[in-house]
């Protein structure tokens, strides 16, 4: 993993290349480095880190989302990058709000992001600009709602105990 100073150097290089506002923060926790960027520049940051940097992170290990309810902005998208030559991992993170959940897609840089971005869209509602085929992947196509948001109910059935089996209507009623 890049250590704390390595992370700061990466952030410095990204800021130098793509502007001061692109990187909004760095975090180094339990020896894992996270670079927080603003949503608009995600594609440029990721492409820069993958292709043009001196110490590139050329492999996209994972692309996943998270709902940070109640902290705003709620939806987070994480890009877990890895350098196979140096065996280092770097997490690039953006936060978007539910009202404007648009993030540029990284499918041109990493074709493997295709299914993973569809999954983030399916479960959190993050719209990826430039994705060739953004539709639901794991839920049925006509499903309404974004299940893995924190305010989406868990669903499921009531468990029948003797004290409530009279009150719960069965499916045949």
């Amino acid at each position, binding site marked *: 993993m890049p250590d704390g100073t390595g992370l700061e150097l990466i952030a410095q290089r990204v800021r130098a290349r793509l502007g001061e506002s692109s990187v909004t923060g760095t975090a180094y*926790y339990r020896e894992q480095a996270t670079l927080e960027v603003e949503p608009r520049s995600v594609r440029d940051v990721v492409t820069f880190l993958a292709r043009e940097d001196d110490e590139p992170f*050329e*492999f996209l290990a994972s692309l*996943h989302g998270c709902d940070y309810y109640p902290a705003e902005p709620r939806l987070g998208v994480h890009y877990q990058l890895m350098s196979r030559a140096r065996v280092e991992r770097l997490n690039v993170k953006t936060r978007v709000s539910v009202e404007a959940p648009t993030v540029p897609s990284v499918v041109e840089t990493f074709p493997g992001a295709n*299914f993973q971005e569809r999954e983030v869209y399916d479960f959190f509602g993050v719209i990826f600009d430039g994705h060739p085929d953004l539709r639901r*992947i*794991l839920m049925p196509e006509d499903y309404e709602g974004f*299940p893995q948001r*924190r305010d989406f109910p868990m*669903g499921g059935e009531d468990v029948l105990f003797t004290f409530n089996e009279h009150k719960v209507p069965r499916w045949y009623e």
Partner: protein
Amino acid sequence: MSSRNPLDVPYRERERSITLERMGADGDEQAPQYGTEVEPDTELFTINMGPHHPATHGVLRLLLTIEGEVVRDLTPLVGYVHTGIEKSCEDQQYWKAITFVERMDYLSYYFNAMAYCMVVETLLDEEVPPRAQYLRVIHLELNRIASHLFSVGTSALDLGAMSMIFYTLRDRELILDLFEMSGGQRMHPRYFQVGGVVEDIPPGFEAKVRGFIRAMPARIDQYEAILDKNEIFLQRMRHVGVVSREQLLGLGVTGPLLRATGDPWDLRKAAPYSSYEHFDFKIPVGTVGDHYDRYRVRMAEMRESLRIVEQALDGLPEGPYITSNRKVALPPRDELATSMEALIHHFKLVTEGFRVPPGEAYVAIESPRGELGCFVVADGSAKPARVHMRDPSFVNLQSLKPMGENTLIADLIASIAMLDPILGGIDR
């Protein structure tokens, strides 16, 4: 890979040059390339290879656009066994979520639990005692052998070689007996806990594992004798489904698929975890990257896993099998009668569970299908705020399209088989 003297191979096979060192040397062995231009008077026909089909790899739905017998376009549609595991985990305590996460990739269940436990241990900054690490390695490698056995057996079943699955299931039963001895259940035994393993191995386990290790190489030789030089198997697998290494890396594919192209990327060697650096084992790689290489990589990995299990048993250290931090692991039951703190810890752990300080982490391990990662966000309470499993089959499924385009439908079946998709992991 197997470096046998070419002169040991009988004359007939030598002339057919099937040994891997000589692969690619003879130009007439290339598979026919189907024309990539569509003739104007042929019709494209879209057919649905539905979620229920005889290929025993789960409920994978494919939309095939075929021209005659050649597949022109291929779209996988998944989600037919989506269980909402990740969302269910947010409602459970950390140690209860292990059972949920285990059922995700249902052939390599120990790996799911391992990735999740490793993340939680990272977040808690917990040390796992060496005996627990070695026990984890033993169970992980046995599970790797079981998973590869099942994968090779069902792949052969799909290709028509039905006898393989009976043999591989026979050996898989031996491994499941071992799991039942240590964990109590054949599948999904919840043996890995945060901080170690739930219980020490019973007496007689080591002897039984050693018996298995003694018997297994001969069995793998039997499987290789059935399939390695089988004419039909070779014709169906050689030079079929070749995807270049750069394309696979762009797609994020890892595991035996990537190693079959010649890339020796294995997280057990590159970023060793859980004392894998103490063991001496090799990473089998292929040369061409076709289905035959993928099959051979899996067979060789089974042998290497046997070596790892043997070394782990030989070097199994004494000591505790779970961390002694009572705030994370349950205290041993004999302490409950004497120590008040142990009772309180037990009570708190069982009712509320341990709390994890806020933060997020991602840890990846090498599962039989590739890089299995787990991402956990903790918010300071006893329940995780987000659990995401980066499943290798989900990412590897994207390579089905380049593997299956412009090949016959029969080759597509071989591609699905060799891709080794586990729909539980894809759909989570």
